[in-house]
């Protein structure tokens, strides 16, 4: 549909100037639509996909769901995920590794009759300085152990402040929620 641009007579033009004044005048008396930030905050942060966080296991909130497959680190376009994995020989009875508390992990491995190497997630490091928030890691995770945080108010003075250790964050979060 090829149209011609509508032409305007001088009278119409002069009228349009007053119409414009009317529009801005009308808006002048309308209520404001801005959010006065420190006093108000936007209400749509629940849908914001910030940096990633580890998801704890349902039965054990101190352990993450992560199975250490490393898919997220491989999928990341900017190489900002690093998994620190500690290999540990454990006994066959699974009781010891079922709830590897933070202090228990430090315990030296006992020589067992049937050696089995278990890989334990020591740290999950996210370098948020590099992250481009694309969400590839969350999509590739086969066990849904990563989720987006809604943390949008981030500020810091050094780059080091944005190198997050997600496992620690997850545990801190749980401790804070359980104590508070």
């Amino acid at each position: 549909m090829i149209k011609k641009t509508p032409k305007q007579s001088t009278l119409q033009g002069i009228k349009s100037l007053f119409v414009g004044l009317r529009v801005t005048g009308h808006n002048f008396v309308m209520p404001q639509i801005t959010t006065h930030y420190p006093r108000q905050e936007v209400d749509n942060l629940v849908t914001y996909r910030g940096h990633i966080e580890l998801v704890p296991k349902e039965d054990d909130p101190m352990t993450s769901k992560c199975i250490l497959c490393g898919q997220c680190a491989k999928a990341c376009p900017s190489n900002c995920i690093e998994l620190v994995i500690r290999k540990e020989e454990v006994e066959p009875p699974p009781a010891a590794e079922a709830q590897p508390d933070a202090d228990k992990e430090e315990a030296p491995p006992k020589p067992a009759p049937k050696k089995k190497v278990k890989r334990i997630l020591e740290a999950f490091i996210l370098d948020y300085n590099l992250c481009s928030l694309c969400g590839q890691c969350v999509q590739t995770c086969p066990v849904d152990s990563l989720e987006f945080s809604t943390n949008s108010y981030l500020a810091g003075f050094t780059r080091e402040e944005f190198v997050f250790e997600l496992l620690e964050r997850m545990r801190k979060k749980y401790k804070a929620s359980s104590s508070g």
Partner: protein
Amino acid sequence: MLHYAQEQLQGDYYTRAFQAGAQEDTLILNMGPQHPSTHGVLRIILELHGEYILRAEPVLGYVHRMQEKMGEVKTYPQYLPNMGRVDYLHALAWNWAYVLAVEELLQLEVPERAEYIRVITCELNRITSHLLWWGAYLLDLGAFTPIMYGFADRERAMDLLQIITGSRLTYCYYSFGGVTADLTPQFIDGTKEFCKYLRTRLPMYKDLVTDNMILRHRVDDIGIIPVDMARRYGVTGPNLRGSGVEHDLRRNTPYSIYDRFDFEIPAYEECDALARYLVRMDEMEESLSIIEQAIDSLPEGPVTPPKMPKVIKPPKGEAYGAVEGARGVIGIHVISDGTATPYRIKLRSPSFSNLSLFAEVSEGILLADAVSILGSLDLVIPEIDR
């Protein structure tokens, strides 16, 4: 007389090259890379006679990121987030062009619901892009208020897109074979409401700006791009439709499911900045109409293909994904050598072609018109530089 240091007179490589061709008694003016009206870091060297432009040369590359090289070192999915950064205003169209090309290589079937979601979000994104252009263009022309109104409305659309994509500007939402997240009822209701709301706002825009006598006189009859010139430079999108050509990939080579919707391709025959302005204003309404139709006929079903290869390794060959972005034809030419990394990715950005005619179109015009023409071309500098 003022005395200038010798090195100040020489300028950089481009200025020197430009100055070599200058006439006597003319003024060489560097507009940009930091200039209020170049919307980023575009630099234009102008040769002025009074306020008339004798010669203009855009200098690019200030935000060049070698996106094409990045494509050759990243895997196919890893390159996806780059797409939102090429054109941050219509990121979803770039997303789409890329996944379209890769889907063609992979022979991947996209579920119907995902196609609808792509249409809805892409059109919503187009509206946000046009709204920002509208505000920014009026800012170029010296009106401060419209950009605030435009942004207020754009925020609503971005809030909607945030619901499903999680981000507000550089979306990375489409995935090979579908989309990464399904629509939520909140999004659907919000979008319906937004369409109604924007339809009440567009007449206000018309009253405040489109019909304004000063604006009409500013944009009427400047920056004439005849069809022939558009063809030689590869101008596409609203700029081309402002030259009276009803060329729109959504209609000409309907990709995805655009052939199912009833919408007009607005085109104006005047070829000037006003025509391009009106095309975009009309396009927003058409996009609203497409969104409403798509939401009304949204089918149920999955949003990702049932069977996805674990590692994306397209077979050897090439594919050209072309979609209609807010600025014109976005084309992504992918050559695959059968590995997980593209062999060559060529990004055809519409702004690049649209800007390339500036040198020709700006001959003999006023400086103020140059600003106005640049704005009417709707440039996104990161897209030009890639």
